[in-house]
């Protein structure tokens, strides 16, 4: 009986994988292109007819690329911008999400609507005005154009809706009784939140923070518009500049750069994606 059930599951697995196969091939295709181009000796990239496999793996492409594309600086900027915008977004979103999950108040619906609207107004739609805003604000004897600060603030603002949505849907699943017990024990509301609520919410906070980080890491249009000098560019823009409007593109270096910029985030994402599935689904039924 058991063996029979096992055999049925085995057969079902085969069908499922067969059905998914075309999509999986297409999904893995760009990763294969990235990896195999990145390790090709440069003289093999432009031979005709082109071949998939390199004659040998040339790992030195990565160190060449690191120097030639000033990868380190862009990596630093990406890290700085993504981390700071993540912190700012989380700091302003946690109280808002707490209020949405725990209180009923006038204007709650309006606030939710407002968040929805901010989701619709993507940075690219507002990019003309965003640039004006940055140019208008005096900062360090100049203005905010070409500063990483402007990018951080913009990213944080555009992530509020997502963060509040994710956080409030998780917060609503944390039982109220625990906090109320803390109040009865004479704990103030702020203390109860710090001592009882936040530790319980820590996993949700972590997951939301990481996805906010990834959003910043992957963003393009805002940096592309607000940042002018190479010293302040993040990875997405730095690597795009290696490709756009050039006669000769060193594709092996470009692919090495995209691979390095992509892989860490992909691994992080693969590890955490089921939390995203859960969080979005919880938020969705609200």
């Amino acid at each position, binding site marked *: 009986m058991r063996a029979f059930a096992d055999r049925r599951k085995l057969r079902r697995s085969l069908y499922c*994988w067969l059905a*998914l196969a075309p999509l999986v091939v297409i999904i893995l295709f760009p990763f294969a292109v990235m990896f195999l181009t990145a390790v090709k000796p440069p003289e093999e990239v432009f031979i005709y007819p082109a071949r998939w496999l390199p004659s040998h793996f040339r790992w030195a492409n990565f160190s060449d690329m690191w120097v030639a594309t000033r990868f380190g600086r862009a990596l630093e900027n990406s890290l700085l911008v993504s981390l700071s915008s993540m912190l700012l977004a989380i700091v302003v979103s946690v109280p808002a999400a707490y209020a949405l999950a725990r209180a009923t108040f006038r204007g709650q619906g309006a606030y939710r609507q407002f968040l929805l609207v901010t989701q619709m107004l993507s940075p*690219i739609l507002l990019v003309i005005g965003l640039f004006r805003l940055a140019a208008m604000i005096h900062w360090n004897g100049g203005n905010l154009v070409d500063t990483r600060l402007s990018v951080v603030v913009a990213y944080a603002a555009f992530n509020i809706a997502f963060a509040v949505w994710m956080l409030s849907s998780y917060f609503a699943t944390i039982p109220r009784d625990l906090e109320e017990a803390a109040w009865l024990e004479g704990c103030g509301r702020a203390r109860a939140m710090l001592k009882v609520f936040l530790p319980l919410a820590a996993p949700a906070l972590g997951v939301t923070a990481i996805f906010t980080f990834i959003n910043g890491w992957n963003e393009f249009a805002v940096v592309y518009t607000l940042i002018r000098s190479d010293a302040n560019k993040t990875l997405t823009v730095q690597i795009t500049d290696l490709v756009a409007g050039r006669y000769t593109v060193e594709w092996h270096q470009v692919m090495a750069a995209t691979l390095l910029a992509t892989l860490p985030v992909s691994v992080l994402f693969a590890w955490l994606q089921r939390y995203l599935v859960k969080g979005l689904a919880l938020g969705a039924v609200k």
Partner: protein
Amino acid sequence: MRRSAGARQPSQTRLNPWVLILPSLALALFVIGYPLYNIVFQSVHAVSRFGLIRGFCGLDNFRQVFADPVFLASLVRTVWWTLGVVGGAVLVGLPVALVLNQDFYGRGLARVLVMLPWSVSLTMTAIVWRWAFNDEYGMVNVTLQRLHLISGPVHWLASSTLAFPVEILVGILVSVPFTVTLFLGGLASVPGDIYEAARVEGASSWQQFRRLTLPLLRPFINMAIVLNVIYVFNSFPIIWVMTQGGPSNSTHILVTYLYERGFRLGKPGEAAAVSLIMLLLLFAATALYLKIQPREGGAA
């Protein structure tokens, strides 16, 4: 119920929810509200290449834009782009979600694989595909030639008829993970025993799908359509990085047209007008959707 919980808390600890909401509201209003106002302002003023306001010009910017055949073509292409990518993502996403919802060996791995494109920046995806679709050295042509599906290199991105469909396919690929995620969330909320009952009644798998799964998924499909329409309509990097609207303006959609007007051709006033037109389109689409969407009871 919530009221009573609120009443139990000691009065000195009661917090005004608006105090909690204020920081997020202020930040969002500042970064999103001001640019919005500024776009309205610029759209009705003559603005120099460097952003100097030259005076009120009424609807001149809008007139200029509507007189531009490239704008009109981009407008139409945006509709195709949105329909193509969203429709494709839903059509691919639904069967994929149904498969991933089965119990089979390696399902965890399969889910990770399907989600993978989501983790990659659209910009990076576009760069890699741009290389993969390279005429002579790209792996797409190499592979198709190996499989004897084409006889010589196809000029995918250099051709005004092929470039746009290629970009739509890339758009579908990157939209599938999010769509599947929403569907999986929906499928998880479907109780298993109703299928048991249906099987007892002798319903075929197709009937189960048509009569049970599809209606239960309806709200999730609707949501996938709305959210994807918003994202795809606003999607900039794929087209910008792969073709920059070319060859000969054959792949411009409104966002790339807007960016080119504002930052390449030095016409911020017209770009602001395009932004506003896009906003109106987006709101109109949402309003239309809310109107045709049947009201579902007041479930929180």
